């Protein structure tokens, strides 16, 4: 589905990603863990094309997409739930979903998204900037689904949410996984991240310092305390 090989990304002179190689297979959920400032969001930005890598390759469904503009990635079947949600503030909930609609025959339609997030159904006419943080997060996920993706990039979807909403997001991720969606998930919430993941990578200073299955990481106290600050 997705394969990165030796990806190097810079912000100006700052060398943020220093040779990332990883892959996501169809139907797989891969989680990226790591402390703040270690390059997790930059990794997402490199894949979707917001900040293209300076060196290395990104392949998606067989195509080399390294220098594609973001909207082409989305048309090809990639979607992003960005850090900070980035819901369109002057658009209503309905419009936020409609502008992302890809074609007419997608698996995801407005009614289906509203079925997945009943809370949004009551607020279709509200503008994006009038929503609570939790509702914005639901909308950001729903908006990504409306593009009818095969691969979902999710950047800290539980950031700043109350425990009840964290569980709600966890439920949705598990449901999407059951539907066969491939997901690359950046997440700080360790229990959630490990419960849905098939594979885990830890990012530190722009490099992958640990890769394993969730159960192995769970048992590895040394890696957890060294790279995640978990006792």
């Amino acid at each position, binding site marked *: 589905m997705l394969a990165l090989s030796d990806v190097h990304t810079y912000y100006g002179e700052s060398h943020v990603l220093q040779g990332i190689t990883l892959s996501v297979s169809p139907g797989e959920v891969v989680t990226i863990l790591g402390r703040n400032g270690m390059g997790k969001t930059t990794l997402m930005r490199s894949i979707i094309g917001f900040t293209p890598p300076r060196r290395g390759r990104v392949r998606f469904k067989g195509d080399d997409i390294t220098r594609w503009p973001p909207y082409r990635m*989305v048309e090809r079947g990639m979607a992003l739930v960005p850090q900070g949600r*980035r819901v369109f*503030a*002057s658009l209503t909930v309905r419009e936020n979903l409609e502008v992302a609609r890809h074609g007419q025959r997608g698996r995801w339609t407005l009614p289906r998204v509203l079925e997945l997030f009943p809370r949004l159904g009551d607020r279709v006419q509200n503008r994006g900037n009038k929503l609570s943080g939790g509702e914005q997060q639901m909308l950001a996920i729903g908006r990504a689904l409306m593009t009818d993706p095969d691969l979902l990039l999710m950047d800290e979807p539980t950031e700043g949410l109350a425990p009840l909403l964290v569980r709600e997001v966890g439920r949705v991720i598990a449901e999407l996984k059951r539907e066969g969606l491939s997901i690359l998930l950046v997440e700080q919430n360790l229990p959630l991240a490990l419960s849905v993941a098939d594979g885990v990578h830890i990012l530190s200073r722009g490099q992958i310092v640990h890769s394993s299955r969730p159960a192995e990481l769970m048992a590895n106290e040394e890696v957890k305390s060294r790279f995640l600050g978990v006792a």
Partner: protein
Amino acid sequence: MSAEFWITQAFNGISYGALLFLLASGLSLIFGVMRIVNLAHGSYFMLGGYVGLSVVWRTGSFLAALVAGAVAIALIGIGMERLFLRRLPGQTLGQVLMTVGFALMFQDVALLVWGGDPYTIPVPAALQGIVTAGTLRFPAYRIFIIVVAVLIGVGLWVVLDRTRVGAMIRAAVDDREMAQGVGIRVPVVSLGVFALGAALAALGGVIGGGFLGVYPGADFEVLPYAFVVVIVGGLGSLPGAMVGSLLVGLLDNFGKALFPELSYFTLFAPMALILALRPTGLFGRA
């Protein structure tokens, strides 16, 4: 001063504001979607007027002049955006220099093709009359300008606020990068908005040519007005362009009528005040 004075001046101010709206709404949209400060926008106004003039001379049809002016200048806008401005994303200084360069070249081209004499675009007989209400007399042409601006304003509002394309444009204004991240072809949206903005300015140029005239220097004469409108109203905001146009039209008219020696002051002092109190303009967002 009599009530007649106030009503007549207010009417003149509103009709001038209506003309400014045609110019400024496009400028504001272009800035909102593309973050381009287009200093050639006044040139679109002037060139639109000249193209309209030639078409009226050739065909005698004012309507043909409006259409031809808008289409011709939209094509020029498309060429500028596709071939040049697109290569300078986020480089404000480069954009400013490039659009100023274009404005100066357009000025030379206009001088070469149409010469240095001022002209007035002949308007249809139906628009030449005077509408009287009691002792008040309103030129029909100025009423026509107001009607056109209202129709364009309503049309733009419906498209922007009620259609999927409009939502895409607003999404690009809100967050250009994320708009691409949900699959919106932002470069195409940008091109369309740029062409529309240029066409509206040209429409203003043809209509303005009917009462302000068409002459060398009209481009840089209207440009500051358009910028004051956009800055006062808020960059990228359609309601802002509407309110800003009316405000500037009225201020300019009353300023010139009441304190002719201070007319720039009455125009720019309120702008400075609004900017100081509300840097994003009346309707702008941070």
